[in-house]
């Protein structure tokens, strides 16, 4: 089997990453407006529809480097819309970890796809919520206060990210990845493998 990525694979990664990023933007905007409690759990919710896309991508391009490229592109886009710098870093590091530690040299199977996606989503949850809120809380809160954001929202944001909540958020991210991967594989079997578009072990 040819292990090197070619132009067609790059195009597929580009198209599907665009889709994943749009889904991510819509869900994160809606959930961060809805309130502090939903805001911190958005990576977990984003992971569910994105699981379907990611499973298709991995099944269609079973080669090494897919996670890294996908994470890098998403990171660049987050940078372009003014995201916090920890998000791109987390995405790229997560991609590299998933590609080289979890996928390793083995052939990509359904199981390893799911595990890798779960870890990826957990790292994204760390980079998007836990990192900024626990390391840079003062700056974050100061910016929010000056911007006339209601006091209740800020208090809710602080109380939900203190204590052992970061662990809960990361676990929620992992769980979201797991559910997303499971649904994704079901959808893959139901629609794509049956139609003969992809084949996975």
């Amino acid at each position: 089997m040819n292990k090197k990525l070619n132009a067609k694979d790059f195009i597929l990664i580009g198209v599907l990453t665009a889709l994943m990023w749009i889904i991510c933007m819509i869900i994160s905007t809606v959930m961060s407006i809805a309130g502090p409690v939903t805001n911190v759990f958005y990576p977990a919710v984003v992971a569910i529809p994105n699981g379907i896309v990611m499973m298709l991508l991995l099944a269609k391009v079973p080669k090494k480097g897919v996670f890294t490229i996908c994470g890098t592109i998403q990171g660049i886009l987050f940078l372009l819309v003014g995201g916090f710098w920890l998000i791109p870093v987390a995405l790229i590091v997560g991609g590299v970890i998933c590609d080289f530690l979890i996928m390793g040299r083995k052939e990509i199977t359904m199981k390893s796809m799911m595990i890798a996606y779960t870890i990826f989503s957990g790292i994204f949850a760390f980079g998007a919520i836990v990192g900024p809120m626990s390391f840079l809380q003062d700056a974050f809160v100061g910016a929010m206060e000056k911007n006339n954001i209601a006091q209740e929202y800020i208090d809710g944001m602080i109380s939900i990210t203190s204590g052992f909540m970061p662990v809960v958020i990361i676990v929620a991210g992992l769980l979201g990845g797991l559910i997303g991967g499971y649904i994704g594989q079901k959808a893959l079997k139901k629609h794509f493998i049956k139609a003969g578009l992809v084949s996975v072990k």
Partner: protein
Amino acid sequence: MEENTKKLITQRQFQRTAALDPRCKVALLIMIGCVSYFLNGEICSLVLVASFALFIAVGNGGKWAAKMLIFYIVIAYLNALLRYVSIPVLSVIMSVFGVTILKLVPIAMMGIWILHTTQMDDLMVSLQRMRLPQAVTIPLVVMFRYIPTLRIEYRMIRNTMDIRGIGDTVWKQLIHPLATIEYILIPLLMRCLKVTDELAASGTTRGLELEGKRYALNPVRFSWKEYAVTALGIVFLALLLFLDHTSIGEIIIWRV
């Protein structure tokens, strides 16, 4: 024939600021993204939006800039109005919503303008001049090209769903979220696979895969103009950040 083709390619569709190097535009966008969230004073944010609206208006985007500027002013005004109303949960949500939109307006304005005024070939060449590997350039270019198309695809799927009466009410979509995801996402993914095949065929015939150095008929380079614009942008944004911390940042302009 060949002369005609050359003329068609080198014909400049965009003038003045729109004809700047894509790298320069993207650098400006990143800088705006960094600054926009840290500007707290109302007057500084307005100056940021207004000045970049002017920048865009010079380069084939007058209508778009005017639209976004009016939108910004209306939202800022409504946001100020909100201080005098207090409904328990709703006003918290609305204030967060208003601030998020105000912060996103300059970024969205600049980003969509860049999408409209940059030719993908130019972007590809300029990214390759930065010595980025193919693994980054091709997905990135495809992505910028594909994001506007996704909206059209989505609308088509919704139309088809309406015709067949699937998930046609908001209530149905809300009580079956997984079914909604499936009905929308799976056709979209099918389309993505199809589009990928077509794009790959079209790209391969035009030599997308070639690793060698590309030549461009349109001059793509970081000339003194780009350096000047980038430097001016940095100075301007730094000045705004500085002014924001002085007493100017505390002036309230959105009064009701």
